[in-house]
């Protein structure tokens, strides 16, 4: 009974400030209450002490709020600064020692920089940009002019109204080159106003310290941009960082950003750079696997993942990826549908976990940084050694003795543990990484044999080696050289190309030193060394070695192939083409050479146009005798076969071509050939087969659309284009062909829409402009005469005309689909398929808002395309002009309006012209713009008015015109 009476008694009143029932100031109530706001009020009452002091209850209330809303502002309390007692002894020591080592470092640096300081400062002064406002001055009499300028201009203060001339549209139309390079999807998602940022940093006169400082800062900027999802920007900043000091960590981060941008080629390159610097880098391997997976080089992807797994058997992500890729490999042949699906899921997963990883990498680095810095000497030593990256700290720690390594590992574990949110699997792998540090380095020696393909790849030189060492009649290597060679082969086999090069070089020296004439063996040695160089990416040395080998043994297969590959990767396509062709003369069955030759042909056509063959150096004719001179062939035909397939395999691996992609390419090429021969029916069939293999490739669809167009199957062509546009919503070709298809279907309105889109994407497409004109004419005819049947003849001819030059570009589109450089257009407006002749006034859809309108105007203005401007004006309701122009009216815009009104509209529809002029005068900034018109421009306006006076209309009277003239200050 007593228990009950207490709350009753307390529940009588309310608190003074918030009128909370007193009964709410109770443990039970607080524990049950879920209303944070109410609890916050209670807490305030309790803290104020107006109802008495209840420390326990206050604490409970705080805890309850924290549990419900940990970010509640009521929880913020004034706290004193942390002191040593807030940390554990180790933490406190770590904090202090870190600071001390930094201080020591700074002092050291001060002494050094004092010596260097003297003249570097001046050097940089020279590179500075000019002083603002005086940039236009000539350098000769700068001082004089400068002073004049200052008097005339700068002493007059600028007021706010003068700041109003800013043109947002201009800013918006600026597009980064970077953005253009990335593929169309990324392009579409990125904002149109990407800034132009220098890719390189001028580092003249900078000390090493400063360079490190700047490189780190650029990397930080890159990381920040990455965290925000601005991958293009991130890549730019990583590139800048690399331009100052290249480090593996930055390459690695850059690769990740490029993966996000789906820029597979660059990502691959960057991963490889990381692996050059740090052969065991797990992240780079994982990333390279992702890239290979995307490029459909499943075999290589699996190899990389296996490498990861051999170091980190627990890495669940790698395991998963392996499974998925293997599934893909299996499922590849029967159906292509699930492949696309599976791929997508994989990307998602990798992205999810990798985004955490990107950040982790940084923290990890900092962590290591901290660990290393704790002994200043170590840090200095590393600088002295010129070690560029903190990412290398792992390897370094080996040399620095056990203690440091232990600490490193400890730190590492710490970071992994504290990063609990990063997911359990990650944690595990992280720990594992540190545990197996040793293996990372030793791994290349011991574990590489597990990768089948790599070993296979080397088996050729190896066989050569054993063959020759085994004492074939033709080889006469001295035993020492033979031994070096076998060692080299072994090293090559285990992937240690650098060491293999050394061995081969020794062998070569030995053989040449003997002076004995054994061209065969020497040639083989050179060729083997070339293979190593090729593997290392050292193309120029590879070519040199191949040249030597070929001097000794003309027309031998392998050096030729290697030289071709090296040339190709150095983008010396002509030389590469010649070499491949020579190879094919020797042995036409080498598939890889065939494919490569085809590929290069395409590239060369892009590069040099149809007359590319004329620019080629002559292809050497291979003597019949040389065909017997193949190494692997020897005299035994039985050995010939496996070796060529071996080469094929090797080549295939190297070219990153997998069988289905091969088939796809072949089919596509055949299709393209049929198109060239004019057999569109067959071509379409080929393309259809292609689609069975890969539904994602847009070019096939655009190509098939072309065929259908030629075959007058407009409906089908339209479908293909629709499909492409679903995948890639800014595909200019698809728009263009769909426009033609619509035209064929006599849906002129939709056709005009699509042509407009083409022009929006690339205003320089002359064919589209012509077509558009024609279609608009047809449209007018159509709406006036109401019968478009007689147009069929003319229509056919125009398609023929247009597609012919277009077709030539096919190869270009096929190869460089991703690298197309086009400004991003505002493509939000989904093409409206207007039913034909639904109403009398079929028009280009009006731009929906000021932004789009501005975009279009800017595009038109850039080309001075009065005709298109006239089209725009005819479709635009004059009344909306002031709204659409908002405050963007400029002299140039006014001028192009006036001109297009004069040339195109005033004659046909003076009423409309008048209305436009009338509403134009209502636009913002009109007065200002008018005041700034030059004399000639005023005359143009006058002309237009004269024209309007001549051609009367019922929509305006002469008085109207006169009053408007006054508005235009005439």
């Amino acid at each position, binding site marked *: 009974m007593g228990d009950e009476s207490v709350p009753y008694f307390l529940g009588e009143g309310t608190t003074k400030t918030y009128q909370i029932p007193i009964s709410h100031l109770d443990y039970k109530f607080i524990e049950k209450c879920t209303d944070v706001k109410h609890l916050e009020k209670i807490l305030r009452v309790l803290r104020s002490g107006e109802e008495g002091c209840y420390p326990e209850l206050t604490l409970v209330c705080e805890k309850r709020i924290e549990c419900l809303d940990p970010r509640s502002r009521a929880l913020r309390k004034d706290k004193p600064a942390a002191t040593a007692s807030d940390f554990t002894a180790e933490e406190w020591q770590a904090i202090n020692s870190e600071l001390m080592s930094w201080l020591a470092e700074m002092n050291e640096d001060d002494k050094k920089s004092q010596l260097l300081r003297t003249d*570097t400062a001046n050097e940089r002064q020279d590179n500075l940009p000019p002083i603002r406002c005086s940039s236009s001055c000539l350098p000769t009499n700068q001082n004089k002019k400068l002073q004049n300028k200052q008097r005339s201009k700068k002493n007059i203060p600028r007021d706010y109204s003068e700041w109003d001339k800013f043109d947002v549209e201009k800013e918006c139309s600026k597009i980064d080159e970077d953005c253009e390079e990335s593929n169309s999807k990324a392009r579409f998602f990125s904002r149109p106003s990407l800034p132009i940022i220098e890719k390189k940093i001028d580092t003249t006169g900078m000390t090493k310290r400063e360079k490190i400082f700047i490189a780190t800062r650029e990397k930080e900027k890159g990381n920040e941009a990455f965290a925000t999802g601005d991958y293009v920007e991130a890549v730019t900043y990583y590139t800048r960082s690399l331009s100052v000091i290249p480090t593996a960590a930055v390459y690695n981060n850059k690769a990740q950003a490029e993966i996000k941008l789906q820029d597979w080629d660059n990502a691959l390159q960057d991963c490889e750079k990381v692996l050059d610097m740090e052969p065991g880098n797990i992240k780079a391997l994982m990333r390279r696997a992702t890239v290979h997976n995307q490029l459909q080089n499943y075999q290589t992807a699996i190899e990389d993942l296996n490498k990861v797994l051999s170091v980190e058997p627990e890495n669940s992500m790698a395991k998963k990826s392996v499974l998925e890729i293997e599934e893909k490999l299996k499922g590849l042949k029967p159906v292509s549908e699930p492949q696309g699906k599976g791929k997508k899921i994989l990307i998602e997963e990798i992205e999810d976990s990798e985004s955490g990883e990107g950040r982790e990498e940084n923290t990890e680095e900092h962590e290591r940084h901290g660990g290393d810095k704790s002994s200043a000497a170590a840090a200095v030593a590393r600088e002295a050694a010129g070690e560029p990256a903190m990412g290398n700290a792992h390897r370094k720690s080996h040399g620095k003795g056990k203690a440091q390594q232990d600490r490193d590992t400890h730190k590492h574990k710490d970071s992994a543990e504290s990063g609990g949110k990063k997911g359990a699997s990650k944690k595990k792998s992280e720990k594992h990484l540190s545990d197996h540090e040793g293996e990372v380095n030793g791994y290349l020696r011991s574990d590489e044999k597990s990768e089948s393909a790599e070993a296979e790849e080397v088996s050729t030189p190896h066989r050569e080696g054993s063959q020759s060492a085994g004492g074939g009649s033709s080889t006469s290597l001295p035993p020492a050289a033979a031994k070096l060679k076998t060692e080299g082969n072994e090293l090559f086999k285990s992937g240690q190309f650098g060491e293999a090069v050394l061995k081969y070089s020794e062998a070569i020296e030995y053989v040449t030193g003997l002076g004995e004439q054994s061209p065969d063996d020497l040639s083989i040695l050179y060729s083997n060394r070339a293979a190593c160089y090729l593997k290392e990416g050292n193309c120029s040395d590879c070519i040199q070695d191949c040249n030597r080998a070929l001097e000794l043994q003309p027309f031998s297969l392998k050096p030729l192939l290697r030289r071709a590959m090296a040339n190709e990767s150095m983008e010396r396509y002509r030389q590469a083409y010649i070499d491949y062709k020579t190879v094919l003369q020797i042995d036409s069955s080498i598939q890889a050479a065939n494919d490569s030759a085809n590929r290069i042909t395409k590239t060369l056509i892009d590069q040099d146009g149809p007359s590319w063959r004329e620019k080629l150096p002559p292809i050497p004719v291979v003597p019949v005798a040389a065909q017997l001179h193949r190494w692997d062939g020897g005299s035994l035909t039985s050995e010939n076969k496996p070796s060529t397939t071996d080469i094929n395999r090797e080549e295939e691996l190297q070219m990153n071509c997998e069988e289905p992609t091969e088939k796809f390419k072949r089919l596509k090429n055949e299709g393209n050939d049929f198109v060239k021969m004019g057999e569109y029916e067959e071509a379409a069939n080929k393309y259809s087969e292609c689609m069975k293999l890969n539904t994602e490739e847009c070019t096939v669809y655009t190509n098939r659309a072309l065929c259908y167009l030629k075959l007058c199957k407009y409906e089908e062509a339209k479908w293909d284009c629709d499909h492409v546009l679903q995948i890639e919503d800014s595909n200019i070709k698809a728009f263009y062909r769909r426009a033609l298809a619509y035209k064929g279907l006599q849906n002129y309105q939709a056709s005009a829409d699509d042509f407009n889109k083409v022009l929006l994407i690339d205003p320089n497409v002359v064919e589209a402009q012509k077509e558009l004109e024609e279609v608009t004419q047809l449209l007018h005819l159509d709406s006036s005469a109401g019968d478009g049947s007689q147009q069929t003849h003319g229509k056919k001819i125009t398609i023929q005309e247009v597609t012919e030059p277009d077709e030539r570009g096919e190869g270009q589109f096929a190869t460089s689909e991703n690298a197309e450089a086009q400004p991003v257009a505002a493509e939000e407006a989904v093409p409206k398929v207007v039913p034909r002749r639904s109403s009398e006034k079929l028009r280009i859809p009006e731009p929906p808002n000021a932004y789009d309108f501005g975009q279009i105007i800017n595009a038109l203005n850039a080309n001075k395309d009065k005709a298109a401007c006239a089209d725009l004006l005819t479709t635009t309701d004059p009344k909306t002009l002031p709204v659409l122009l908002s405050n963007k009216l400029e002299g140039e815009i006014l001028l192009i309006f006036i001109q297009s009104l004069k040339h195109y509209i005033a004659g046909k529809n003076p009423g409309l012209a008048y209305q436009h002029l009338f509403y134009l005068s209502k636009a913002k900034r009109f007065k200002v713009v008018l005041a700034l018109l030059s004399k000639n421009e005023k005359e143009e306006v006058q002309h237009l008015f004269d024209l309007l006076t001549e051609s009367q209309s019922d929509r305006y009277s002469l008085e109207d015109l006169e009053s408007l003239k006054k508005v235009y200050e005439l």
Partner: protein
Amino acid sequence: MSAVLGPERPQVVSHVQQALSYTVFDCKWVPRSARLMCLGSAARGTGVIQLYELHGARLEVLREIEKPKPIKCGTFGATSLQQRYLATGDFDGNLNIWNLEAPEIPVYSVKGHKEIINSIDGVGGLGIGEGAPEIVTGSRDGTVKVWDPRQNDTPVANMEPVQGESKRDCWTVAFGNAYNQEERVVCAGYDNGDIKLFDLKTMSLRWETNIKNGVCSVEFDRKDINMNKLVATSLEGKFHVFDMRTQHPTKGFASVSEKAQKSTIWQVRHLPQNRDIFMTSGGSGSLHLWKYEYPAQRSKKDSEGSEMGVAGSLSLLQNVTLSTQPISSLDWSPDKKGLCVCGAFDQTLRVLIVTKLNKI
């Protein structure tokens, strides 16, 4: 063990406290060194520049320079890493650039304003920001002027109200958007709550807004990138973070605001090593460490199809109270992450260490 203290949260440690014999207005780390500058006004109405060096757990005075006028603000932003000249603004409206090795005569001097220079910022030096080195000053006389140390006597740009319009006291200025040689903006905050963004490339007023209370401090998260975020703090304890990437034609930039404390927020400074973390210093002697979290999508289309920004959210990482007097100045070390210095009106200079900034 450390779990009790919340291992993820950064802690603010007061490493050194140094009592001063004058009122400190501004303090700055000397780039690429363990030294710092302290600027202020001595009791007899003269200006003081002190150069300290951090030695373990104490500060050692290296140099003390006395100047005729109290010094309000200083920056190293427009000097090279080699020279490290200090640019200062004083109570008389003078802009001076000092070589700290030979501080008797300024290397550059101009009577820039009629009244006190409240705020100064520099860009183009220290390898931060592309383009020419420039200094911007904001003064009580209502003008904001941009100076190039290579041009004597006259500013390269001058932003002042039109004749007749009342002059507002300019309290703070900041450079931003200097990601290439042409682009550059100046942001200025005024006593009536106006924030104005001047584009120096096009010489135009790009944007303006009013946050209702006097603007004490503005800073871009980084000066040398395509402008990303701007923080503006106000007299009444609120601060606003603007997402500067997407400018809507009518609505301007999206922003999020947060109330840190009941008193004025004197200054905001972003961590040089991570643009999304910043510290605000308050009138009640408190420091707040914040983190900005981006939204999933930073921009969206409004009903008319124009791009508009989406503001993110703020989370308080740590707060401490160091003094009963306002902390008027704050500066992060550009070289050592987590090291920072602040000067308060209780005539004390504090060197702070903020821990665990890596783990955020």
